């Protein structure tokens, strides 16, 4: 069977499974559509949350980021897991007790203000739509690579699939579909990692293998990796970072962003009890950690494999790295996986010194330039897109064809599950918070469902359109989504629970200030609405305020939000007694019941 047929079989079978589940669990009432009847077990919910959370960014691109950045990119690992601690302790149980369907519901009721509700809806839509664009692009790339169709066709296929089960299944369809997707994606992620860890270290558990001895050279894997990358002019894989302030703020931004992202929060409305919301967050993190603890092993091992593919002499015990560097791979002898990925344009070879060999090294390292010159090298000749690392991993390690098919199914599952969860959050914000609560309270249940489905379809079209015409900012968009959620929604939710005296004016002013400052800072460096060339300052570390990168600014935005909210509150009236009673009741699990209808 050809690789194409195997990929088709795996992707097709996994789709049949998701769609089958969506049809089987078709939503009946409005409540089913949003929160799956409030009857999802914490472990099930944890698994679905994990699938919801782990997007194309986690599955496809994170290991590649770790491989290229080493220790410095640990921020992604800590940020995207540490957010669950805040979520579990500061938000999830209380929002479950509050017992409404959506994030703007809570903000609107708690701050007794439709302005607050509207601001929350705007923050939610901006954060979610930007996030979906990235998922559509990711799914499109995965589809086009594995089904061998053009990128455009890949995106349309992704849009059609998401539309089918998100629109017809509702939350319940998504919850059980996402359990299936979690299983597919975690199996797809770990199997190649286990094989590779075995090959390199003899230890089948990737997270232990990473810290054990590299079989071929007899020294620890990470020490070996440092030696190899050093010999090629790169800094140590494990090297420390100078700008600690930025690293701390970036991690914090990702953490508060995690806790403020509406599609994750909405998950905790679906468990039967408040106690279950707490357990649920724990289970979600367990399932997420399975991938996040494996990712650093995948990243470091792939980096080593890549280097030793190009410089085969560097693989074993090396006496003289200089001599090994002379023996770079002859281009005509390159392995098949380089050939296949060259066709996608994501690997490029340019024989700058015309010696027929592939030289890869750090050509921006000035100290190393002399060494390179003495060897007759005229620049690094192979560019490898970070994002192909996970997808190409099984091919690099010579694993059988079915593992490659599995990775295809897993990558697509990761992108689709997150897109579907985000679309649900968007559609409920529009149909429920905007139309039902603010514009037409008399709308029938049927009408509300219809509005939800139409807005979902609308959101898919917008995201697909933007995915088809990528403005070239996938990584920045994801960061913007986190920045917006962390700087606007997270502080409002937290103050709504922990500060009984926080009032409507304070919350609205805080959200607007947090959102405004964050957008302003990001747009200053990345261009207004990300339009290239409209940025006022070049996006380089020298220009950053106090060395804070635009990606890290969400944390500062959140602090501004808190400060503005408390300042405004101190000069305005305190909230009415019934609101203070509401806050009081949210704090105690007693009498939570099912998620209430209204």
């Amino acid at each position, binding site marked *: 069977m050809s690789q194409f047929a195997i990929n088709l079989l795996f992707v097709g079978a996994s789709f049949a499974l998701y769609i089958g589940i969506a049809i089987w669990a078709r939503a009946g009432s409005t409540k089913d559509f949003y929160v799956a009847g409030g009857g999802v077990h914490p472990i099930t919910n944890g698994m679905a949350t994990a699938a919801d959370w782990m997007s194309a960014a986690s599955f496809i691109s994170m290991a590649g980021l770790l491989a290229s950045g080493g220790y410095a990119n640990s921020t992604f690992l800590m940020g995207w897991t540490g957010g669950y601690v805040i979520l579990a302790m500061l938000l999830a149980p209380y929002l479950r007790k509050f017992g409404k369907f959506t994030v703007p519901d809570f903000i609107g009721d708690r701050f007794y203000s439709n302005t607050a509700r509207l601001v929350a809806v705007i923050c939610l839509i901006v954060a979610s739509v930007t996030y979906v664009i990235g998922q559509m692009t990711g799914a499109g790339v995965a589809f086009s690579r594995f089904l061998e169709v053009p990128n455009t066709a890949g995106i349309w296929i992704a849009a059609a699939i998401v539309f089918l089960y998100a629109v017809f299944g509702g939350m319940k369809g998504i919850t059980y579909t996402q359990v299936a997707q979690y299983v597919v994606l975690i199996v797809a992620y770990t199997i190649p990692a286990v094989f590779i860890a075995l090959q390199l270290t003899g230890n089948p558990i990737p997270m232990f293998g990473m*810290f054990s001895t590299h079989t071929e050279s007899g020294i620890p894997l990470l020490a070996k990796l440092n030696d190899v990358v050093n010999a090629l002019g790169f800094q140590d894989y494990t090297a420390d970072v100078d700008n600690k302030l930025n690293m701390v703020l970036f991690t914090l931004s990702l953490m508060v962003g995690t806790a403020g992202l509406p599609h994750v929060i909405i998950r905790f409305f679906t468990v039967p009890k408040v106690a279950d919301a707490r357990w649920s967050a724990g289970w979600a993190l367990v399932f997420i950690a399975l991938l996040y603890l494996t990712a650093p092993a995948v990243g470091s091992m792939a980096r080593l494999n890549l280097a030793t593919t190009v410089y085969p002499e560097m693989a074993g015990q090396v006496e003289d790295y200089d001599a090994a560097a002379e023996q770079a791979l002859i281009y005509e002898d390159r392995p098949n996986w380089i050939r296949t990925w060259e066709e996608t344009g994501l690997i490029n070879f340019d024989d700058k010194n015309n010696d027929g060999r592939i030289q890869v090294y750090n050509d921006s390292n000035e100290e190393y330039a002399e060494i390179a010159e003495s060897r007759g090298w005229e620049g690094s000749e192979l560019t490898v897109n970070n994002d192909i690392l996970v997808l190409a991993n099984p091919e690099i390690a010579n694993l059988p064809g079915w593992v490659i098919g599995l990775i295809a199914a897993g990558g697509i599952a990761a992108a689709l599950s997150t897109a579907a969860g985000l679309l649900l959050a968007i559609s409920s914000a529009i149909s429920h918070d905007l139309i039902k609560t603010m514009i037409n309270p008399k709308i029938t249940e049927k009408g509300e469902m219809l509005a939800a489905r139409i807005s979902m379809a609308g959101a898919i079209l917008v995201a697909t359109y933007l995915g088809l015409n990528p403005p070239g900012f996938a990584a920045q968009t994801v960061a913007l989504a986190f920045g917006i959620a962390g700087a606007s929604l997270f502080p409002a939710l937290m103050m709504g629970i922990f500060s009984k005296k926080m009032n409507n004016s304070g919350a609205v002013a805080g959200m607007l200030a947090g959102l405004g400052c964050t957008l302003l800072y990001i747009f200053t460096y990345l261009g207004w609405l990300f339009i290239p060339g409209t940025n006022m300052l070049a996006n380089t570390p020298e220009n950053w305020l106090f060395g804070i990168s635009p990606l890290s600014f969400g944390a500062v935005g959140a602090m501004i939000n808190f400060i503005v909210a408390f300042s405004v509150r101190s000069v305005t009236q305190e909230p009415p007694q019934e609101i203070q009673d509401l806050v009081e009741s949210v704090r105690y699990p007693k009498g939570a019941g099912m998620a209430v209808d209204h």
Partner: protein
Amino acid sequence: MADDKSNAAEYWKANVRTIIGCLAVWAFVSYGCAILFRPLLASIPVGGTDLGFWFAQQGSILTFIVLIFFYAWKMNKLDEKFGLGE
């Protein structure tokens, strides 16, 4: 709603204390051990690198899981003790 106001206030205080304790550990392992104090831990070797690196890529995540489960367990006990559970 709590039947007894002072009881409820007591419960909330205990909850906030637990959260502060957990978040102190949360910040210590991630911002502390993995980032700011990494140079101080450089002398403790872990499989080819140092303890700070291990905390950044493994240890902090494992600690996060323990923290959430500890919190859920502790809060269940508090719910029961104050009679405020479901």
